[in-house]
């Protein structure tokens, strides 16, 4: 058991190997830092985390070191004494901040980072009010094409080299480098080799100032307008924990949320920039039903009773000819409600798993210079491009023991053996789509085809009923990732005016009263399905719950 004294307060750090920044953090003392990042190597070059350090001698006295030392590089040992608020430490930090601002342009008004900029924050908290520098600042030209998604505002860089180390240590692609020397040092790329790896977007998050900016988000919003919601990325089965940033119900960006159980600190660009369909103008905005061969917009008041009636009729004719397709983009709760609805109509109704989009192999990082993966793996982009196959499968297994594939549904439908298909899709737009034109034509042979989806697809064009679905950012629920980690989705934006969340639609189909409330349903799910038993309380904390 090791005890560290942080500003006179004893902090027990157990047996963990921590540096002083982490140890002080345990004691509630924040030590400012730029170059240090828990996932990257220590270079101790920004000199922002300078503190006074001492050791407790065997006789109990404290021997302070004669100079300030960087906290990031100093391991916390039993008896280490850290002083962050002494005149000397504060002076060293203020001096570093003044230095950083020597060549940093004060263009905060036009800088996208303003508001979440660590240089701003630390200067406010630890720095001087005014710079004494009166000479001209060195302002190298911007590099707008340092990456397809990244722009480098060279003059704002404070040379923490987090981005360089990221590309070398996490992605392994090593596109970024430091060029020139001294105050002329700048981040650069090799000519013609932009930073376009699949994790490149992370350097924007890593950048403590506004030097590396995401072109996707550039100038779209000032960050202080954004409201952040904890959620889960729905783009692959890694299930990265993310912050969903929105303003006035428009989704502006996703940022990775540190979660050691899920993905660590980072997320891939596919997920990061793949959310734009949520704001799409193409979305299915209201329920539609087919009358005289044409799909016409309708109200929920019309559609829901008709839907209930038609499905009940089909079940009455032949329960086994009714199929509900549960896409792996449904939350566990939604899958559970839909399964329960159909199973309550008849035990013979069949439940199928929607198509599971899979692209290539799992993509692991870091890579070596030949693009081959290197051990140890620090980040994985999964081939399975859906967030909740495991969760939905577990629900299906519970209700009918086996999982019917989507191809079987298409085949049965093409053979004209089905009376009704309810396809709860909710797929984001990805190349190829979730259903091809042929598959859609086969599905359309079923007299009652209900398609619930976010965007129009060949299947929705042929469906008898089209029901709007909502995206991951608009609903609450649980996703279970590839490893069995159940994470909670929080609603970040309101769905379009006439869209009901999928869970609400299922609830209404069941004629259960009230609004859908994820924790309640989750508790029910945990009671009914043993796999989800750890979720019995209905709540999931920010890191999620590991299901076995």
């Amino acid at each position, binding site marked *: 058991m090791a005890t560290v004294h942080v500003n006179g307060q004893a902090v027990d750090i157990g047996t963990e190997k921590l540096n002083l920044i982490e140890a002080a953090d345990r004691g509630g003392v924040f030590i400012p830092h730029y170059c240090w990042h828990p996932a990257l190597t220590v270079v101790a070059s920004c000199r922002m985390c300078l503190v006074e350090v001492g050791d407790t001698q065997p006789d109990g006295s404290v021997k302070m070191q004669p100079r300030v030392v960087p906290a990031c590089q100093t391991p916390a040992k039993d008896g280490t004494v850290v002083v962050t608020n002494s005149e000397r430490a504060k002076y060293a930090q203020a001096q570093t901040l003044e230095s950083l601002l020597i060549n940093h342009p004060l263009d905060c008004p*036009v800088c996208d980072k303003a508001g979440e900029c660590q240089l701003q924050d630390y200067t406010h908290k630890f720095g001087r009010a005014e710079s004494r520098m009166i000479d*001209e600042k060195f302002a190298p*030209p911007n590099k707008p094409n340092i990456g397809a998604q990244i722009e480098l505002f060279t003059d704002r860089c404070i040379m923490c080299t987090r981005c360089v180390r990221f590309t070398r240590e996490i992605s392994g692609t090593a596109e970024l480098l430091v060029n020139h020397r001294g105050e002329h040092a700048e981040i650069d790329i090799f000519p013609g080799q932009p930073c376009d790896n699949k994790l490149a977007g992370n350097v924007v998050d890593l950048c403590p100032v506004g030097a590396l900016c995401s072109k996707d988000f550039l100038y779209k919003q000032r960050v*202080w307008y954004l409201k952040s919601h904890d959620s889960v990325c729905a783009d692959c089965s890694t299930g990265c924990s993310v912050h969903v940033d929105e303003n006035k119900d428009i989704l502006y960006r996703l940022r990775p949320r540190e979660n050691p159980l899920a993905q660590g600190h980072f997320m891939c660009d596919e997920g990061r920039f793949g959310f734009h369909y949520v704001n799409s103008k193409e979305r299915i905005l209201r329920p539609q039903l087919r009358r005289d061969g044409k799909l016409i917009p309708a109200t929920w008041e019309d559609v829901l009773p008709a839907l209930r009636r038609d499905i009940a009729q089909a079940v009455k004719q032949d329960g086994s000819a009714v199929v509900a397709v549960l896409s792996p983009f449904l939350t566990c709760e939604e899958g559970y409600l839909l399964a329960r609805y159909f199973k309550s109509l008849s035990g013979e109704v069949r439940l199928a798993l929607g198509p599971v989009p899979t692209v290539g192999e799992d993509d692991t990082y870091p890579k070596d210079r030949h693009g081959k993966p290197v051990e140890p793996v620090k980040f994985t982009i999964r081939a399975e491009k859906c967030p909740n196959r495991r969760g939905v499968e577990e629900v299906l297994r519970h209700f009918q023991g086996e999982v019917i594939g989507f191809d079987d549904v298409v085949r049965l439908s093409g053979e004209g053996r089905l009376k009704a298909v309810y396809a709860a899709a909710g797929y984001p737009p990805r190349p190829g789509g979730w259903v091809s034109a042929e598959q859609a034509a086969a599905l359309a042979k079923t007299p009652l085809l209900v398609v619930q989806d976010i965007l129009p697809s060949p299947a929705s064009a042929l469906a008898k009923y089209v029901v709007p679905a909502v995206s991951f950012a608009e609903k609450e629920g649980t996703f279970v990732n590839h490893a069995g980690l159940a994470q909670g989705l929080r609603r970040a934006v309101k769905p379009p005016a006439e869209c009901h969340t999928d869970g609400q639609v299922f609830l209404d189909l069941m004629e259960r009263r009230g609004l859908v409330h994820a924790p309640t349903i989750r508790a029910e799910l945990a009671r009914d399905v043993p796999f989800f038993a750890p979720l019995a309380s209905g709540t999931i904390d920010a890191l999620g719950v590991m299901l076995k």
Partner: protein
Amino acid sequence: MPIKTEDVKWIETPKLGVLDHLYLPAILEGLKTTVFGHMLTPNITVQYPEVQAKMPPNYRGVHRLNRDEEGRVKCVACYMCSTACPAHCIDIVAAPSPWPDREKYPETFVLDELRCIYCGMCEEACPVDAIELTTLHVLTGLSREEMMFDKEKLLSVFDQTVKDGTDPIRTSAGRLGPASEQPKQAPVPGQPGAQP
């Protein structure tokens, strides 16, 4: 923030004399002020609309968007004004600027003059002195849409005020703050500070 003790000014009740206790002298004094101090002095009211009032230069009226020397909009779309605005009447859409000497410019800039409370916070917040409140105070319109001033309209207010010579004066330091002035000397290519 609590008020500091040294900032508190204590005022004591003045000691009244015998005459003061009679009240009558005070009443007469008051009447003197009423009659000779105000009633018989010239009026300062202006007969609007026959006579147009000349507003003091720091009057806060209709906004304008300033142009720089090259006639481009000075605004850099930093949203400081819309952030500072207590009435949430400024709506900006930023975009990468088409000019090399700055990074950002307002693609659209819409100010709802009906919603505005003319507090001047936008002017205070602007880091480049792009938005200013002019002395124009006659603001009428027949529809709400008409009162949504867009970028062109706000720039035209600038043109008009410049033509009329009714530039607002905002600070004792001069017409504009130091931040708004571009560096005077042309940057030498290749030298530090040269713009890309």
